[in-house]
Every structure is written in C-alpha cells, then in structure tokens.
C-alpha cells in the first residue's frame, strides 16, 4: 500500500490528476477516486474490491492523467490506443498485478445481504464481519467469474508496475469453454435462453454506461430517433435490438473487462455475446482485442484476400 501511494504521488507530480480507487461506503465497496490535490493521495487504496475499470473515464479527457489499471483493465488502454481514442503521451499508467477481485454479489448472497462492517484477508481466506456475525470464506469461492478464467493478471502496458507478477494457467480454450459449451445446445434452446435472458432487460443502459468502449455515451443509437434503429417499446424484439446494437458495435473491440455484466441489475449475461464475437475474431482474423497496440480492430480494416472467410454456398 505504501508502494502504491508513493507511485501515485510520483505520477501526480507529473500529471496533476491520478485516477485510482478509495474505500466506498462500506468495507466491501471501493469507489473511483480522482486525485486532484496532493492530500487526496492518502485515501487511495488497492484491494480485492477495486472492481471498476477506471479506463472508462479516459477517452476524450482533455488533460493528461495518471491511471491505475489491473491486468484486465490494461487491455482497455491498448484498445483505446489502437483506435486512437487516447494518446499514449496523455496517460501515465500504473499497472497492478492482480490475483483477482471479489464478486460482491456472491459475497452478499453468502451473508444474506446483511450490512458488512469489517473485512480481513489472510492468505487464501477472507473473514467477513456483518452486523450479526463473522464468517470465513475461501477467497476462490468469492472471486468474480471473469477472474477464474483470467489470462492476463499482469498489466500488458504500463509505466510503473506494482506487485509481483502473477502467473495465469488459463489457456485460450479454457477461457472460451463456456461459449463453446453453450453453442452445443440446439438452436431452439439458444433462442429460448436469450428470449428469457433478454426478456428480463429493463433498458436501463447500465451495461452500456459501464462499458469503457461504448464511446457514444448519450448519443447511443439505442435512444435516438435519427437514426431510428429501435423504438422505446418494451417489446422483446426491441430489447433484442438493443443488445444486438451493443454487441455489434463492440465487435472486435470488447476487451472483456466484464463491467457490463457487473453493472446489470437483472443479471443478464451480457458479456457472453461479446465473448462469442471475440472468439470469431480470433478464428477469422487471428485477432485478440487489447493485446497489441499496433493491431487494427478487424471491423475497420480488411484484406483483399481473406484467408479464413470462405464464400458461402447456398
């Protein structure tokens, strides 16, 4: 923690703004923290509850900024750089090797939604104190699902690095096993799965707002009349349309930070659709999002001869 603060103050001298985390309203919630004054550095933290992908604030930010990123978040930066949404010289990156973060939802379910008053972590276990009692859990049981299949626990791009490198044993195939499993279901089952899941959607757009790559923000075509891709009706088809818009606009761009899914109040597996597209991007163009600054997002480029796209016969 000392190292963290030292790094932040080092960067702060250069940028006058560092985006990091501080403790939230209770011990199991962190909240984004914009350090603009030297005195605010003291409040900065990094722990298992620093779930947010802070990169969401970066595009179109008009000043130079320091930023803290976990391994997964760092892919967002690379994607931004690929797309020219930020300039490398405008960010100073403090990377943190990460062993995974807690899925607060899981934790809350375990403690039956009681208010948490204290948390202590000891090795692989976590003690949670609530108003009525104290319980101990294995860390792994509370890790966010995305962390269990994390292939990039260490930042891929950084100016300063904090923490010992963490090894990941997750292969590409393991990370996408869920998608392949799902695709084994018959078409009708897939349709009824999504009919049920997307049927839950309340069009709150939390997924979109949390997504660092949804750069349109309030100009999103899910809400406009010009162009009029979808109406505001609560019909299933319009909900489908919204999720297609989200997925298609993220094709070859989603870095799978999982913020959409974390933000969804009704628990729609929003990230699955993007993972499916990423799987195809790898297959078709040998492209993986947010890995290499010099890559080009595949939907915005082409080859005259596409090795993997075969002409479709009828």
């Amino acid at each position, binding site marked *: 923690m000392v190292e963290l603060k030292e790094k932040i103050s080092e960067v702060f001298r250069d940028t006058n703004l560092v985006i990091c985390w501080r403790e939230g309203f209770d011990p199991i919630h962190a909240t984004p923290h914009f350090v603009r004054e030297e005195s605010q550095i003291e409040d900065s933290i990094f722990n298992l509850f620093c779930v947010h992908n802070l990169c969401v604030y970066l595009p*179109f930010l*008009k000043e130079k900024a320091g930023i803290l990123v976990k391994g997964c978040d760092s892919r967002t930066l690379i994607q931004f750089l690929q*797309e*020219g*949404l930020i300039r490398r010289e405008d960010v100073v990156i403090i990377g943190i090797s990460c062993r995974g973060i807690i899925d607060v939802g899981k934790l809350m379910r375990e403690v039956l939604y009681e208010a948490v008053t204290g948390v202590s972590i000891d090795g692989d276990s976590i003690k949670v104190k609530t108003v009525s009692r104290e319980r101990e859990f294995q860390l792994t049981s509370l890790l966010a699902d995305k962390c269990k299949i994390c292939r990039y626990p260490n930042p891929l791009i950084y100016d300063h690095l904090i923490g010992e490198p963490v090894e990941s044993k997750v292969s590409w195939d393991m990370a996408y096993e869920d998608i392949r499993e799902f695709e084994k279901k018959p078409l009708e089952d897939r349709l009824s799965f999504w009919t049920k899941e997307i049927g839950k959607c309340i069009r709150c757009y939390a997924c979109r707002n949390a997504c660092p790559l949804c*750069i*349109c*923000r309030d*100009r*999103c*075509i899910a809400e*406009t009349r*010009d*162009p*009029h*891709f979808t109406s505001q009706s609560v019909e299933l088809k319009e909900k489908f349309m919204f999720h297609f818009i989200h997925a298609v*606009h993220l094709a070859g761009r989603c870095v799978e930070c999982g913020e959409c899914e974390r933000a969804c109040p009704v628990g729609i597996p929003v990230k699955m659709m993007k993972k499916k597209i990423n799987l195809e991007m790898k297959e078709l163009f040998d492209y993986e999002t947010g890995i290499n600054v010099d890559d080009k997002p595949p939907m*915005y*480029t082409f080859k005259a001869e596409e090795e993997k796209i075969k002409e479709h016969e009828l």
Partner: protein
Amino acid sequence: MRVGVFICHCGNNIAGTVDVQKVAEEMRKIPGVAYSTTYVYTCSEPGQNEIIEAIKKYKLDRVVVAACSPRMHELTFRKAVEKASLNRYFLEMANIREHISWVGDDKELNTQKAIDVVRMAVAKVMNNKPLFSSSFKLTKRVLVIGGGVAGMQAALDCADGGLDVVLVEKSPSIGGMMARLDKTFPTIDCSICILGPKMVDVAQNERIKLYAYSEIEDVKGYIGNYEVTIRKKATYVDWNKCTGCGLCMEKCPSKNAYDYFNFGIAPTRAINIPFPQAIPKKAKIDPNYCRYFLKGKCGVCAKICPTKAIDYDMKDELVKEDVGAIIVATGYSLMGVENFPEYGGGKYKDVITGIQYERILNASGPTGGHIKRPSDGKEPETVVFISCCGSRDKSVGIPYCSNFCCMYIAKQAILTKDHLPKSQSYVFYMDIRAPGKGYDEFTRRAQEEYGVRYIRGRVSKIYPRGEKLIVRGADTLLGIQVEVEADLVVLANAVISNPDAAKLAEKLRISYDTFGFYVESHPKLRPVETNTSGVFLAGACQGPKDIPASVSQGSAAASKVLALFSKDVLESDPQVSYVNPNVCVGCMKCVKTCPFGAIKEEELRDGRKVAKVIETVCAGCGICTSTCPCGAIQLQHFTDNQILAEVYAFASGK
C-alpha cells in the same frame, strides 16, 4: 406531406403481369399519399407531363414512380420533377419491371410484391430531403502518366486544345513499347519513323512539361484540384548539362548492364542512352552495374564527359504539380520467357520472346537489324513462332487473349522472309484473331505470299538436338504430333499488367481487375472514364490493345479532359456524406475506413474534435455511415433512416 405515386404500365411489360390498378389503389390507403395513378408509358413526354401537372394540381411535395429500373430512368424523372419546381431528390423509383413483372409469372404474387416495393419507396421518399449541389473551381492543367503512344497522343491533343500538360514517364525516354517495334502491322510502316516525329513534337511543345525517369509518388485531392507529387529518380547525370553526345557510353568499362530497352537480348553499358531516337536524349547511370557504385572507384564517365554532367551524389527529388485531371496511360508488361520451362525459356538462348525478336529485326537494335540468333550469331533458316504463350492459359492464371500477338507473328514471319529469303517460318496457333481493318488479309498474305506454314495446335516441348531446337507440337487438324527442327523459336508471350499497376491504382483510387488492368467506368459507354471522376484511361493499362486502339483512346481521354475543362466551375454530386457535429463523438473511425480519404478531423470552436467530409472528394459509398456507431455521419439520400424506413415498410407488409 403529399406524396404522388405514378405506376407505369410500360405498355404490357408491367401491366401484363402486375395488376397496376390494384397497386395504385393500395397506395391511396397510405397516410401521406395524396395522389396515386397509373399511366401507360410514364417515361414518354405525355407521361412526364402527367407527373408535372399532378404535382401542380395536387400540390405534391414528393413523387414515387413505379416503373423500370432506376438505373434506366431515374435521371429522366428527376428532371421531370425539377420542371415542376420540386427538388430532384424528392423523387424515388420503385423497380416493378426488371425486378417484378419480367421475372415472375404469377400475377397475384407479382401484384403483392409490387405493392410492397412501392410502399417501401413511398416510405423512403417521405424521409428524403432536398439536396443541392455546390460548385467549385478547377485547375485547368492535366497530368498524363505514361509516355507511350497513348500517353503521347493524349498529351499532344490536350496541348493542342490549349491545356498545360504534365507528362510523367517512368523510363528514361518516352516512346514506350512502340518505340521498340521494328515495323507495324498491317502496313509494314517503320514504327520509329512514324513515332519519332510525335516524340519530337512532345519534346518541343511548350505546353508539355516532361518528367522522364520519374514516377508518381502521391496523389491528393479530387477532380479539378489534384496535388500530385512526382519522384524524379536519380540519373546521376545532370540533364541540364548532358548533351546526349554518347561519349560516356562509349567509354564506360561496365559492359554487362541489363538493357531494359532491348529486353535483355544483349548487354548495354552501365551509363547509357537507351536508343538513338530517345527523348530526352540524355544519359543515365544504372547503379546496379556501375563500377563506381559497386566498387567505389572508376569515374571514367566523369572524366570523359565534356560538360561535366556526371553527379554520383545525385539523389531522388520530389516535385509537386497541381492539376485538374489525370490521364493514366501506363501501358503493359510482358510475361518473362522464364515462365515457359517446357519451352526451355531462359535455358535455351534461341528461345526468345516476340518483343526481343522485334529488337533483333530493328535496325537500331543490338544486331543492327540483321537476323542473328542469340546463341551463336548465325542466321536462322527455320524460325518457329508459338502463339498464346501464357495467354488463354488458365493454368498460369491468364484466361484472356493478348489481343495483338496473332498480328505481330504474321508481321514478324513476313519480315523474316524479307530479311532472309531462304528462311522458312512456322507458326503454331490455336486461332488466328485478326478482326481489324486489313488484318485478316494480312495474315492470309503471310501464308499465301510468304509461304509461312501455319500449324493449328499447341507446342508441348522444345529440346535441343545438336545446334537445332526440336519443337514438338500437335497438328490438331490432322490429329498427329509434329516436330520442327528450328534454329530460332519466338514465343508470343502474354501481355500482363505492369507489376506496379496496383500500387498506382491505390494512389489514384481507381479500380483494377484480377489481372491488374484498370477498370473503365462502363465497358461500352464510358470506356475511358474511371469510377473516380477526373481520372481517365488510355491504352493498354486498361487491357491489351494494339496501336490504333491505344491512339484512339489517347485522343478520347484528351477530349474528355477538354470537355471537362470547358466549364469554369464544376458541380458536385450532393449524394455525399454529411457529419452532424453535434452528434459526432470524434472517434474518427470513419476517417480510417474511408477509401477516398474524404473525411478529415476538424476542431470545433469549443475544442471538440469531430469528423468533417470533404464534399468534393466523397464518392458516396456510405462505408462511413455503416461504420459510425452513433449515426453522426449520414450518406445523403441513403441515410440510416431512409433505409430503415424501407425495412419498416417491408415489415408492415406482413
């Protein structure tokens, strides 16, 4: 909104299989449709008048014509609505002939389909907006790329028409392929005798600025306003000082340089003037062979040059020229002899290509016009010509005919007999293609008067026996194998596009086919235009062509440029993209995907960066619109909402 719908019977063409009355009736039910009718021939003058009258009488503000393909008559009806003081983009057409009445027999289904399609057009037209073209000034100078016969013709015609011309030639001299030919068919004119004066004309014309040994580096801008960067390649000889005396070439000790002009039939010197009639007649050093460049010492030419023109330190130079139109006349290349291993190409010295033989026949060629075979300098008694070497051969990826080989083979066979009366020529051919004026007679003359023996069939293999080459082929008319004991074999090697054709096309943003030949705007009606306005084609860069065709195209392209420049301002097509700066989030994905470089980044007063379309450069493809995530950039007349309106109208037909 008051839409008028006009359903055309097209005589019986439409009305025969579509119930046009019913379609008109259905349209009346759509809110916003103020008038709906049918007419027997809507495109006829009374038909058009009907529309004009109806616009006035029923105060129509939008018009849908359901008739033939818009590719046929869209312009006709646009002009008609304009006559009634309506913006021409308030017209939509529904194609109920090519897409409906002509392809379906069932009247009931056709009628239903027509109703849907017209309803979709109505939905679209309700989303149409008036569009206005803007005008812009133009630079009345023309760039001609390539100084072969087509390019020279174009340059001369443009200059005659009063235009300033920038002529860029890749090689050290203009003249192109024609300058290499000995005689031309079917008249047996001396090629350089008719081309030479033209070359001199180019050199002496004050309106033509010639950049020889130069290439196009970059092209920016759009019709009327191109900025072209030209790379003047280093010649290592100061051409302002060089008088073309040729002394350097005589004394140069590096005698094994590849002779590009003579297609390597014999070596040349590292410093050379390509041929006696070269324009400009200036020397140039080939650093790949020059001793000075290879070993760091020599300097013979520098010592001997009377005007001290040699400059070993010369570097490429970039110059910029502003022009308003571009004529591309870059010509063609030929398939190398090494591509024919079954004929011993590259292995047997006496297996040569047609253009190499042309140089052997030519008085200014390496043999001084005496026919001597390369291996031992002997006069050949038996010469075999093989047509279609590579051409019409899918296995080497060239399915097309090279156009002029049949003719030059006949010519070369005739000339062979003229030069060597005791010689005997054989021609292996698949078909004799001689459709030009006087052409067929010419090939007949080769056989009837000059005794050239034509054998119908391909050659399978060539191998040496002693000093002879055994040419084994088939006479398919007899159904037998034949062998000819030849002294010299001439291959009519395939015409291919220039190796850097694609690269130039990318710079000019014109299309090229699988074979690297440039694609004209319309194969019949727009043969010298490209799809990039302001860029025209002439000669064999568009496909294999003989001299008369190349010259005609050169003149045609020049006349197109002259017509274009006869206006003082140009009007732009308003069907281009437009960015709504209030919606644009500045991700610039459109900038990256635009094939025409028509979108640039612009900073607004509040410091926000947004995309901006350069209207005159935008070609109207709409890739940007389907790229933009927030719908900020819209291709006018094909906006998201116009297309979505059609989709929704389609859906409402369920």
